[in-house]
């Protein structure tokens, strides 16, 4: 993101810089959820029979499930019949992008026209339920890379979608994943063919705009043998008093010698100072390192959402495969985050690294929850986890629940965790050099998160660092 764009964004609102609403007609399905709505969505998207069957099977299973309540988060019951499951911006011609939409994305700093795109970033933008533009597609296609909305992939590459859909996150996996499987509307599909190193960062920008609409996107990334891709995801939503649901699924498949980097900067609207409004971010992200020497790296900076429930995971099946999870989660005011990862070691010589930095301020609750599992056949598997929590103020909470299970004597699992506060000495030192209290806290927190921040691609790191400061606004007196 260029400096100009950053400052343009800052002008939008005081605290939450993405809180504006776009005045645009939306074509919505009636409120509520039933088989007819699912058929409506499927018909709107002109989907093949097998996909409708998949959705209906998921929906029927979902009806038998109950919402999970084990996470350390509290929120009132969600009325699933009070949500719009499909909202598409109405445009005259499908190929033309509505100028209002273009303006929105410009405000967000997402350039859609190729000439505006910073070198090396191709963008897919999802607005409510529909993917509105995918840049650079032709150039990527020349190398056999598929980068499109998942709806288009269903039309153009049905075999690939059918083969992998639900293969990493089955619809039976959990309540929210099951709901997503029934009603998912759009999302991104990426396929990198054998031996191809994707020449640019691929990026999706998600935005919830329509009132009372949920966002249920589904992202699939398949990295074939010996390929590489770096994928970035950013999220924003307008400021609203009511809570909105976001229940996404990300499935990643990594084949022999392939590598996928997945970075997220999550800045959904967190609610106001009194905890009113904000996004419920209930997301299932999982990757399968299927091939030998495969590698999957998750990096996330979580600053937004009223409630976050999210555990990007790696199933390390291929021998020598590598899983990484780097996370910064910042909560302020009444935000609640319950986030972490699962590293499931199945293959020989598999290794994983977890670095988690949790920062709680205000009256927020911030939980790291993790699972590291060494299977019977995980010979010489290795895991190292480092989870640090920082508390700002005396009314917030920081919790660490790192579960580990080992059934192989040659495997090694190691976890370290610390909890501390910003010391008075550190604050005094920074202020003595002329920084005010808020600047001092933001500087110290950015230092605390540095190990994770430096894993982010350059253009995201700048935004993430700034978000840290924005999120912590008002956290010190």
């Amino acid at each position, binding site marked *: 993101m260029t400096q100009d764009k950053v400052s343009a964004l800052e002008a939008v609102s005081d605290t939450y810089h993405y809180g504006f609403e776009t005045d645009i007609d939306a074509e919505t399905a009636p409120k509520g959820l039933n088989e007819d709505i699912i058929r409506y969505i499927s018909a709107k998207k002109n989907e093949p029979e097998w996909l409708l069957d998949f959705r209906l099977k998921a929906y029927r299973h979902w009806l038998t499930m109950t919402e999970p309540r084990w996470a350390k988060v509290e929120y009132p019951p969600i009325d699933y019949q009070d949500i719009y499951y499909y909202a598409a911006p109405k445009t005259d011609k499908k190929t033309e992008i509505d100028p209002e939409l273009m303006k929105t994305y410009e405000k967000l700093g997402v350039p859609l026209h190729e000439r505006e795109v910073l070198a090396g970033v191709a963008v897919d933008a999802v607005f409510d339920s529909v993917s509105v533009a995918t840049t650079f597609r032709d150039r990527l296609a020349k190398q056999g890379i598929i980068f499109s909305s998942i709806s288009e992939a269903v039309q153009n590459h049905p075999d690939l979608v059918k083969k992998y859909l639900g293969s990493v996150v089955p619809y039976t996996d959990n309540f929210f994943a099951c709901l997503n499987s029934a009603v998912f509307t759009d999302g991104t599909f990426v396929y990198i063919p054998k031996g191809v190193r994707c020449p640019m960062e691929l990026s999706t920008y998600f935005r919830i705009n329509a009132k009372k609409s949920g966002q249920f996107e589904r992202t699939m990334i398949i990295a074939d043998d010996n390929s590489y891709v770096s994928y970035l995801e950013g999220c924003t939503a307008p400021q609203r008093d009511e809570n909105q649901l976001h229940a996404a699924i990300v499935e990643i498949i990594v084949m022999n010698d392939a590598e996928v980097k997945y970075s997220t900067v999550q800045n959904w609207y967190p609610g106001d100072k009194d905890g009113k409004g904000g996004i419920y971010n209930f997301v299932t992200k999982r990757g399968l390192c299927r091939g030998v020497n495969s590698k999957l790296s998750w990096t996330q900076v979580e600053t937004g959402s009223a409630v976050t429930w999210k555990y990007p995971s790696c199933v390390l099946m291929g021998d020598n495969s590598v899983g990484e999870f780097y996370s910064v989660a910042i909560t302020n005011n009444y935000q609640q985050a319950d986030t972490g990862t699962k590293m499931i070691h199945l293959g020989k010589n598999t290794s994983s690294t977890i670095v988690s930095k949790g920062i709680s301020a205000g009256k927020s609750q911030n939980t790291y929850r993790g699972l590291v599992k060494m299977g019977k056949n995980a010979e010489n598997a290795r895991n190292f986890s480092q989870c640090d929590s920082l*508390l700002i103020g005396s009314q917030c909470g920081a919790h*660490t*629940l790192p579960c*580990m299970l*080992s059934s*192989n004597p040659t495997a090694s*699992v190691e976890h370290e*965790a610390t*909890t501390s506060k910003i010391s008075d000495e550190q604050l005094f030192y920074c202020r003595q050099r002329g920084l005010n209290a808020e600047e001092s806290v933001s500087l110290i927190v950015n230092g605390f998160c540095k190990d994770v921040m430096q894993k982010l691609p350059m253009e995201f790191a700048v935004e993430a660092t700034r978000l840290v400061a924005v999120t912590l606004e008002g956290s010190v007196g």
Partner: protein
Amino acid sequence: METLVKRERLTVAENENAVFIERELADRLEIDVKAGARVKHYRLHGGADNALTVRIGENAAYELVTLHLGNGDLSMSFDLAGEGANCRSDVVYILSGDEKSVIASDVRHNADKTVSAQLVKGAVGGRGHAAFQGGILIPYDKKEIDGAQQHRALLLSRDATVEAVPRLEIYADDVKCAHGSAIGTLNQDQLYYMRTRGIDETDARALLTTAFLNEVLDGIEDESVRAEFERLADEGLKK
């Protein structure tokens, strides 16, 4: 020094010093350590389930070393109730054959300036299954808290399993809390080094495992108790 047999409630009066050695455990034991008292408590556990509850008063210090052998679940709860209370609660567990055990500990910092430290070390062989569930709770508004928990386990056979479920719940900011957990095997370099000196592999393993567990048992001040616990641990490892 007194030897306890199947008593259920104990109170240590203010500013008293006491040493307890428990060889046969009651199903439940509650200890109330009054202000300023200092207690050293050594327990042999195994076979049956047991629950221990300890309340530690103002500026009192309570020190526990438990040697757990074999089946049976062990549940421990420590309430640091008075300002300046100090609690150390170390455990060694050894499982073999088909033995299964859940070792659960809860440390609650219910007063300011309380300090807790816990070192749990385990060795699991055969088809043994051990689960360590360790909680530290620091409630809202508590100040100058220091809590530490370390868990280390060795898997001695192909079919052994160890599960660790630490739980740190912190609702206050004036805290220092450190936690670590590791599950693995003996250090291969150390094994190799010993073998180059002519020690056979079985002996080298035994020696290293004993050394690993003795980090906890060495903390027992009373020499005869320490010797007894170390001997029992050795026997447990040889099963």
